[in-house]
């Protein structure tokens, strides 16, 4: 690995901690980002000459803080002086720097930085975009490409989101235990949204945007490093690893969806599966079940089946049952119905999803599953109607193409019962608002 590549990785992985710490000093997101940017430029000049520092984060925070303070001092001559409290903050910062910057310090800094992006006024997609820009440091161009909008449109969106966040009162004191737990929950949900955005795109041509998934994995890992004994964060990490492990097998060469049953399981990433299973095991020891842990356990059951017919569907049925109790939702019930159809047959599953018609009347997967179950029962005409609904609700060409495949089968096979359920069994996807 060349020096430049090394520095690049070091800057990228130091970013959340460093920007988070700089935000604590400056209490201004733009200033913190600019200071980090300037510190990064100096690192690119300095590190190849003097060698990389032992602690890149501390180096970047120190340099960024000095650069930022210089900018503030220069600005003083032409601009009105900063507010009283801002000045005293800088004095605090001096004292802070004397302390050793340790992980527990970064923990609250990184959490605060992520938490700012989860501002409740921001629609889900804005939260994701802001986190990718501010925390992960993706360029506007990269984010625009992932969301299939122009660079200038994305720039505007980020600017708007930032000004919204700037008006919010974010407390800078070290949070108490309850507040920390609350922030962590909100942040975990946002990381999961990022993963879902990559796992199953809410629009556009690219069905999966792998880089978003990888970013979510990186953020989960960061959270778990900072909160090593939180079982739900272990669950989140396990969940994203186990889902992402299937990525190489999820689409064929023409970007068509391959159902779980039809996937080439030798393509699944064994390292990710092993790590995910290890984390589930660790999390279970805490005996504090949570939705990420259960969802990870479900993904884990799939991952452990060498062939589709080896899947322990009654275990999955039970896990979805536990998830329903913990977090009642029609989407969870729908997913459970898929497990029920495998464990107890399509009739039982169909009865289970009948009451979901109202809450899920605009949900692609509802009609996909319903059509699949009807097809299995040989009720071709009703299946066709359900599939037509699904196509109308499809958000990506791959989803629509997948349902058309079922319709074609129906046409060809006439009344012959089908054995497959038309659903890529996956996570109950929280519905994100459109961009």
């Amino acid at each position, binding site marked *: *690995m*060349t020096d430049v*590549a*090394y520095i690049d*990785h*070091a800057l*990228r*992985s*130091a970013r959340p901690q460093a920007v988070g710490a700089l935000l604590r000093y400056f209490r201004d997101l733009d200033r913190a980002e600019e200071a980090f940017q300037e510190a990064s430029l100096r690192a690119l000049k300095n590190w190849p000459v003097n060698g*990389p520092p*032992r*602690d*890149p984060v501390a180096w970047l925070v120190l340099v960024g803080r000095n650069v930022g303070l210089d900018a503030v001092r220069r600005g003083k001559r032409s601009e009105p002086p900063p507010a009283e409290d801002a000045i005293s903050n800088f004095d605090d910062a001096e004292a802070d720097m004397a302390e050793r910057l*340790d*992980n527990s310090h970064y923990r609250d800094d990184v959490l605060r930085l992520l938490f700012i992006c989860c501002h409740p006024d921001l629609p889900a997609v804005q939260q994701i975009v802001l986190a990718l820009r501010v925390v992960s440091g993706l360029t506007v161009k990269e984010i625009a490409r992932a969301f299939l909008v122009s660079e200038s449109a994305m720039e505007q969106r980020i600017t708007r989101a930032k000004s919204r966040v700037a008006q919010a009162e974010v407390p800078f004191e070290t949070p108490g235990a309850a507040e920390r737990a609350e922030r962590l929950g909100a942040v975990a949900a946002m990381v999961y949204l990022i993963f879902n955005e990559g796992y199953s795109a809410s629009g556009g041509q690219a069905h999966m945007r792998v880089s978003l998934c990888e970013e979510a994995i*990186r953020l989960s*890992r*960061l959270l*778990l*490093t900072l909160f*090593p*004994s939180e079982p739900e964060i*272990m669950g989140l*990490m396990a969940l994203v690893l186990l889902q992402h492990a299937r990525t190489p097998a999820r689409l064929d060469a023409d970007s068509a969806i391959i159902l779980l049953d039809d996937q080439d399981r030798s393509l699944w990433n064994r390292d990710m599966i*092993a*790590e995910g299973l*290890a*984390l589930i095991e*660790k999390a279970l*020891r805490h005996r504090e079940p949570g939705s990420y842990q259960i969802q990870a356990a479900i993904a884990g059951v799939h991952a452990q089946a060498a062939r589709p017919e080896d899947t322990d569907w009654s275990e999955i049925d039970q896990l979805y049952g536990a998830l329903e109790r913990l977090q009642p939702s029609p989407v969870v019930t729908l997913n459970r119905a898929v497990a029920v159809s495998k464990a107890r047959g399509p009739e039982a599953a169909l009865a289970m999803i009948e009451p979901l018609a109202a809450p899920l009347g605009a949900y692609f997967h509802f009609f996909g599953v319903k059509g699949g179950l009807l097809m299995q029962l040989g009720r071709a005409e009703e299946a066709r109607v359900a599939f037509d609904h699904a196509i109308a609700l499809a958000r990506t060409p791959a989803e629509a193409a997948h349902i058309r495949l079922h319709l074609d089968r129906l046409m060809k096979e006439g009344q012959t019962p089908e054995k497959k359920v038309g659903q890529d069994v996956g996570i109950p996807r929280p519905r994100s608002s459109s961009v």
Partner: protein
Amino acid sequence: MLYAFLCCHDEAIVNSWTKEEDDAVLAKRHKVTEKLAARGKLGPAVRLMPTTATTTVRMGREPVVLDGPFTETKEALLGFYLIDCDSLEEAIETAKQIGQDENVTFEIRPVRLFLPQGKAS
């Protein structure tokens, strides 16, 4: 003398490698280790899962089970090699070869007891 080469690295950086970059590092190392293997000098090599998968058991009057690695250092133990070297000099030289062009740290520790089958001798 048998030496353990403990590979210590900034985990955040290793985790940010792409699969291609990771593969490139392994391929580069393999060129060195296959020569050692051909000479019968290479013992087992281990790559550990990230420290986030670690559980620590601290024995005392009551054993304490903790999540995470024992120490919270920047550079974590990510794996190790066991290599038969004639001298510390040779071990240091070998470490330099395996880690060439990387920012890895090797902690070289002479092995006191080696039980490949885990049997008590």
